[in-house]
């Protein structure tokens, strides 16, 4: 059979739901798609640098092994953030200290992707150990924003987001501890979901802050996001924090109707620091949502101003302990000058000094400090109390509305290097996303406009715990009534 009867591949159209349809009608096959992506990556990747590990041969081989049985994602390329374990493939968290580490096991989400026939399509760049909001702290160098390569793609899942936005991949998985999926989705003009804490197994996700981390999809549209969630969500007995409740079919929530839905807009999110263009885009989105017959009202999240401080105490405390295992004893980087090491303490400190980047060290020190004797009560314990208050804020607000609508980020993508010298300014770029992790609720970011400089702006929709369906419904309806998701960066 000749292939010339087949339709030419429009790379910009490579969405999960499109591909599944084209595979079904046999207009395309996975090999054609992968080959096409390979050549696209060759052109684009030098400008974007979205991947840290990419093995063409292995992917080609995997393609041959696509199971004969039907899978929900059969033949769909999915890129994995480099802090999610893929068996026998490098998983380095973009850190020197995990150089050469290939886990002997798959993360539960990866296992589920494989089971459904997805093709694992490289490991995406990230901020080292997910510490950052710009994807500039990777040991392998920064990723660039496809919309403007002198801008950051956001972080820490910047590689995952940029690879999707530049069409180097079809979809990807990221992880979100304080906004690390939503903020880069917003900066790259795509869709990113942080599911409810406990909805997606964390088994195999190299922990940053265990009580906040959650794996989620980054996709080109809302439907793809739902399709990917259908595969990765669900109880996992290997994760004690995973919650054993049934997972709905999220595609059923994709209805173009939001009449009567109650949308809360928190007044605390529009006070200071918000960029004018971002504010305008959100206001226009609200107007559209009202036109679609949803009810929009103001709500209050009174403890918002403490969220960033609370987050940095809890997240760094957990990180300092989670990262203690990287010591050069079992795996990963080990100090080279071993002969001059006098004792085990010196061995540890040299290995860690040489293996961790500046931001990782900053957070480890901060976390160690807030947990140490004499400071625990003043910082960590107090932060836990504030966290409870923040959680209650959401409970109260959700008595009045079904969804909370906010900007995803206070600003559009910033320029590379702009905030690297000022960690506090960098920490503030997660100001709208952090509370969601502290409360454990789900939230999505989707495109809602562009700046005059053609940089994407994202809108965040926050849902009640385990109510990703309502988020999908609103997001899908909004998306179907706008055309932001058709816009593509010029590369």
């Amino acid at each position: 059979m000749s292939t010339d009867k087949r339709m030419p591949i429009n790379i910009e159209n490579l969405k999960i739901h499109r591909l599944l349809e084209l595979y079904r009608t046999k207009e395309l096959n996975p090999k054609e798609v992968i080959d096409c992506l390979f050549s696209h990556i060759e052109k684009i990747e030098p400008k974007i640098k979205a991947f840290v590990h990419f093995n063409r041969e292995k992917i080609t081989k995997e393609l041959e092994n696509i199971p004969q049985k039907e899978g929900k994602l059969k033949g769909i390329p999915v890129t994995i953030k480099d802090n999610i374990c893929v068996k026998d493939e490098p998983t380095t968290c973009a850190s020197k200290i995990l150089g050469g580490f290939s886990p002997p096991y798959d993360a539960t989400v990866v296992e589920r992707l494989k089971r459904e026939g997805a093709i694992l399509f490289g490991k995406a760049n990230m901020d080292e150990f997910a510490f950052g909001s710009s994807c500039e702290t990777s040991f392998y160098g920064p990723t660039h924003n496809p919309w403007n390569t002198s801008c950051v793609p956001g972080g820490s899942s910047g590689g995952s987001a940029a690879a999707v936005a530049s069409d180097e991949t079809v979809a990807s998985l990221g992880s979100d501890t304080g906004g690390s999926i939503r903020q880069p989705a917003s900066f790259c003009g795509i869709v990113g979901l942080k599911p409810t804490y406990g909805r997606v197994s964390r088994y195999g996700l190299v922990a940053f802050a265990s009580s906040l981390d959650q794996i989620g999809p980054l996709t080109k549209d809302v439907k793809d996001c739902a399709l990917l969630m259908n595969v990765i969500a669900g109880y996992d007995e290997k994760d004690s924090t995973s919650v054993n409740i049934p997972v709905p079919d999220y595609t059923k929530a994709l209805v173009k109707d939001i009449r009567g839905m109650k949308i809360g807009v928190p007044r605390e999110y529009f006070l200071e620091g918000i960029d004018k263009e971002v504010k305008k885009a959100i206001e226009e989105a609200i107007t559209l949502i009202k036109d679609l017959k949803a009810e929009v009202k103001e709500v209050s999240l009174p403890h918002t101003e403490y969220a960033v401080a609370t987050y940095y105490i809890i997240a760094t405390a957990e990180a300092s302990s989670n990262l203690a295992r990287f010591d050069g004893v079992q795996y990963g980087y080990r100090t080279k000058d071993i002969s001059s090491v006098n004792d085990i303490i010196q061995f540890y400190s040299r290995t860690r000094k040489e293996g961790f980047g500046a931001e990782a060290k900053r957070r480890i020190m901060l976390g160690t400090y807030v947990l140490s004797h004499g400071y625990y009560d003043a910082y960590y314990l107090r932060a836990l109390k504030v966290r409870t208050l923040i959680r209650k804020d959401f409970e109260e607000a959700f008595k009045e509305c079904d969804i909370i609508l906010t900007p995803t980020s206070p600003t559009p993508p910033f320029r590379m290097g702009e905030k690297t010298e000022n960690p506090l300014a960098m920490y503030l770029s997660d100001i709208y996303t952090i509370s969601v992790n502290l409360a454990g609720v789900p939230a999505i970011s989707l495109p809602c406009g562009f700046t005059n400089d053609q940089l994407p702006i994202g809108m965040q929709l926050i849902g009640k715990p385990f109510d990703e369906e309502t988020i999908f419904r609103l997001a899908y309806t909004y998306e179907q009534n706008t055309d932001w998701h058709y816009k593509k960066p010029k590369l």
Partner: protein
Amino acid sequence: MYETVIGLEVHLQLKTKTKAFCGCANSFGAEPNTLVCPVCLGLPGSLPVLNKKALEYALKVALALNCEVKEFFKFDRKNYYYPDLPKNYQISQYDMPLSINGYLEIDTETKNKRIRIKRVHLEEDAGKLIHTPEYSLVDYNRAGVPLLEIVTEPDINSAEEAYEYLVNLKSVLEYLEVSDCNMEKGSLRCDANVSLRKKGSSVLGIKTELKNMNSFKAVRDALDFEISRQRKILDGGERVIQETRLWDAEEGITISMRTKEEAHDYRYFPDPDLVIFTVDEKVIKSIKDTLPEFPRQRCLRFQKEYSLSFYDAEVLTRSKYLADYFESCAKLYPYPKEISNWLTTEVLAYLNEKKIPIEEFTLESEKLIGLLKILQAKQISRNTAKDVLRIMLDTNKDADTIIKEKNLFLISDESDLEKIVDEVIKNNPNSVNDYLKGKENAIMFLVGQVMKQTKGKADPVRVNTLLKTKLKKGGDNA
């Protein structure tokens, strides 16, 4: 005058099939690093899941020690760096342990005493370092094995009491069948905090922590040494240094390991990978219902049910294994006192002599009772029975076989025995005369002679009767 104040910390390895937070086998003596997985190796991305059986065992111990089981408990991370600790933190329990406020009763010379238990909590064990001249190697097989930490209040006032406490505790733990309780294999480890204070004072003295004691005797000896060491220091008007000391069993002394270093900051905080646990009343009740009869109760019952002395009942019930063995014998043979005698003397003496732990005493109760039945039927003598038992313990053969092989049955043919008796009477006229003149003891010599002739295969009681009958007849005839 000083008062000794001792608190004990016991670490107990639970004998669950799998480790505390993963599915790896929990067993001793395998090739290094063969019982490991991403979870117990602490590989990045791995997550702990609490072993339900370990929790059940922990609750069993807590309830057996009369502790309050908390409605909510959590796990914490104890952060410190060590190469045998894969995550560089240990999952343990800090401010919300699973149980607190229990007690264990011990018998001292003068009275019965309650040692209060401060807490019982669950944690994971670390791996093991093996040092060679060139390298230090790590075996992670033990990493993640469930440990129970049982901590007393400072209620123990002498080395002897500490010893009693440990013996009693071990006995209870054995009854629960939750651990091997083997100190040599490290499945039961004990540290002691010891200090002296002026009698009547309520202020605690400066304490030292004793480690490296690998038998109950070592604990007692180390405490005795440490108490007198501290007393000498105090008598000399000096201060005890707060430090950790190691027991050197060879030298019989404690030696300083490290002085109170900069108080280690473990930065305990709740393990975010494990949720807060709740145990509901139903579970507690069902565990309570499965608690076995404990040594003290069983000792009382043995005295009543089997009419045994306190001493016998105590010896039998101290080890659950021995008590169970006794009861399995008692089902087969209606003379409990006789069974008890054989067990507490002959069997225990044999095991002691051969240094065989009671758990490894494998002679089937049917075989022991087989021997006792032969003895009761007077087919062998008591002394022969003792010899036969030893052969049985050595070879695990049954009594009947041994007796047949060695031809040890008593002479059952009355006429054969009469012939020998007659012969002995004939050959020992002096003794016969002595007896007839009223020297009762002389009969013993004659019995001995018959026994000698029969190579011990005659029943001495029967020989005695037979001799007396014959001599009486002879006397009458004379």
